[in-house]
């Protein structure tokens, strides 16, 4: 028997006037897995999250979360989901404890259970010491953790995180990843949106790449990378003057022309054959006395995937007219 997926969406369409924010999106997230929704600003990621978390009604399509119809029974769905939005939605005048206690009360956990749960989560998210300070005094990373803790108050089986690490410094980001990995190992189903390819690569079982409201690719990180092509040989020579010579020497080993980056003393070339090619390359360089600082086989990154699929890099594009339109429409809505 097939288990009901934790999240299932069919043909989601959302239009803001003439701007199509979502153009027929299908998603399936099996229970206990992580789906990474990857795309630039304005691609439609947040719109998907808002529809699945009952904040927004789609113009067309159906969606189920935890087996419950999102459009027909929004109230029931809300009991089964946790949402942590793009901006940490913590009340900065309340203490960390008060924030979580309030959310517990609004989940109708009861006074005593709300307090216990708040203390438990503060401990779990390493906020015990800061629990009695107003959230105003928290660092960005602490606020995000508190916001995530807020999404977990009712221990929901399905968790939606909209860009959980946007705006965090690298250390806080790594900490957040560890927290999320812990949750997933506990069995939580997670849908997260991100602009960071590294994040999707690290956390997601399956990645859906979305651009202009459409799914343009999906699969595991490895599958997506292999769509772009196989491995590459990367060599960094010690002396920039030898880069040309190294290139002439190694070209016969490749399945495509090498790309040279003079400033980085770098050579990148598609190859096939794995480690034996690398070994051969190193022997050839050695024979000719060309010194190398670094050499290795590189698999394509998700950045390469994105560039290949969309024709543009996964850069934050604040001037995206679709996103701007999207925002003004929502204000009016």
């Amino acid at each position, binding site marked *: 028997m097939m288990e009901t997926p934790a999240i299932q969406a069919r043909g989601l369409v959302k239009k803001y006037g003439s701007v199509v924010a979502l153009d027929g999106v299908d998603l399936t997230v099996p229970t206990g897995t992580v789906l990474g929704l990857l795309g630039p600003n304005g691609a439609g990621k947040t719109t998907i999250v808002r529809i699945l978390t009952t*904040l927004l009604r789609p113009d067309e399509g159906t969606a189920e979360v935890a087996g419950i119809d999102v459009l027909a029974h929004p*109230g*029931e769905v809300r009991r089964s989901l946790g949402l942590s*939005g793009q*901006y940490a*939605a913590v009340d900065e005048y309340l203490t960390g404890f008060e924030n979580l206690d309030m959310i517990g*009360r*609004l*989940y109708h956990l009861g006074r005593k259970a709300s307090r216990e749960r708040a203390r438990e989560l503060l401990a779990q998210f390493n906020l015990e010491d800061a629990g009695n300070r107003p959230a105003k005094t928290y660092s960005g990373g602490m606020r995000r953790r508190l916001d995530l803790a*807020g999404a977990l108050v009712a221990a929901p089986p399905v968790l939606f995180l909209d860009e959980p690490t946007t705006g965090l410094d690298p250390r806080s980001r790594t900490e957040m990843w560890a927290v999320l990995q812990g949750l997933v190992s506990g069995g939580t189903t997670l849908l997260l949106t991100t602009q960071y390819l590294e994040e999707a690569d690290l956390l997601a079982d399956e990645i859906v790449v979305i651009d202009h409201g459409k799914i343009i690719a999906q699969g595991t990180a490895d599958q997506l990378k292999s769509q772009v092509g196989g491995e590459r040989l990367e060599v960094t020579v010690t002396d920039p003057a030898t880069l040309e010579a190294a290139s002439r020497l190694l070209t016969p080993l490749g399945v495509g022309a090498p790309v040279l980056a003079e400033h980085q003393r770098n050579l990148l070339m598609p190859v096939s054959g794995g480690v034996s090619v690398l070994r051969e390359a190193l022997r050839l360089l050695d024979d000719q006395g060309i010194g190398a600082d670094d050499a290795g086989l590189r698999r394509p990154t998700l950045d390469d995937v994105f560039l290949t699929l969309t024709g543009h890099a996964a850069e934050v594009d604040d001037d995206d007219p679709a996103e701007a339109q999207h925002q003004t429409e929502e204000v009016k809505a």
Partner: protein
Amino acid sequence: MSRLDVFADAAVVAKRNLIKIKRVPDLLVFTTLSPIMFVLLFAYVFGGAIDPAGGGGGYREFLIAGIFAQTVVFGATITGAGIADDVQKGIVDRFRSLPMSPSAVLAGRTLSDVVNNVIVLVVMGLTGLLVGWRIRTSFFEALWGFILLLVFAYAISWVMAWVGLIVPSPEVVNNASFVIIFPLTFVANTFVPLDTLPGPLKAFAEWNPVSAVTQAARNLFGNTDPNPLAPHPTAWPLVHPELYTLIWAAAVLIIFVPLANAQYRRSTSR
């Protein structure tokens, strides 16, 4: 979800808003400082000119109910600004994703603003007593006067709640509401006797609900008779100020409670 959840949830939201007053007392200080300033300015700067014979004493008595009305109406902008702020910060998104009663966020917000208004009225009442204002009626009549002021302010809070949900930022709430609230509270019997106003303005002022609530409070505090600045009005709303105030409050609530709640269900952060 039971019906009682609305009240329980609204209480939780109201408590949250009141904690903010506790944590940022500056807010309350500034909302009370400006009416105190108004009392002092009007009583001592304009008072002498308006009421030369009494040296401003009679005017001060006349003035206080007007300042009360103006202050509680201005206080409603706090509701709008607070809600716009919650929308902007994504807190409304969080609330809307919870299995709480959807009406509770606005109910809680308007409830906490009543508490805010009570505190402000107490501070202003004390200031009024210091400058010579007196309640010349019974305790219950005065209490009914204060309740009318609060009921009227509560209705305006719902208008502002709706405004707070449709504008893009808290700053806009303040600017937008000033454009409406300034004429509403000044083209009235709040600070000057109506007889001094030119024809069309006088007609507007007579039917202005702010005039009615002011008149009602003045009557109930016993600040009209025998004050020469407050002759017996002839316009219907001011002859029946309590009824007219309640009709307005009811009409505003009937329109704006559903309107604001419907807007809330559709709003998301920007």
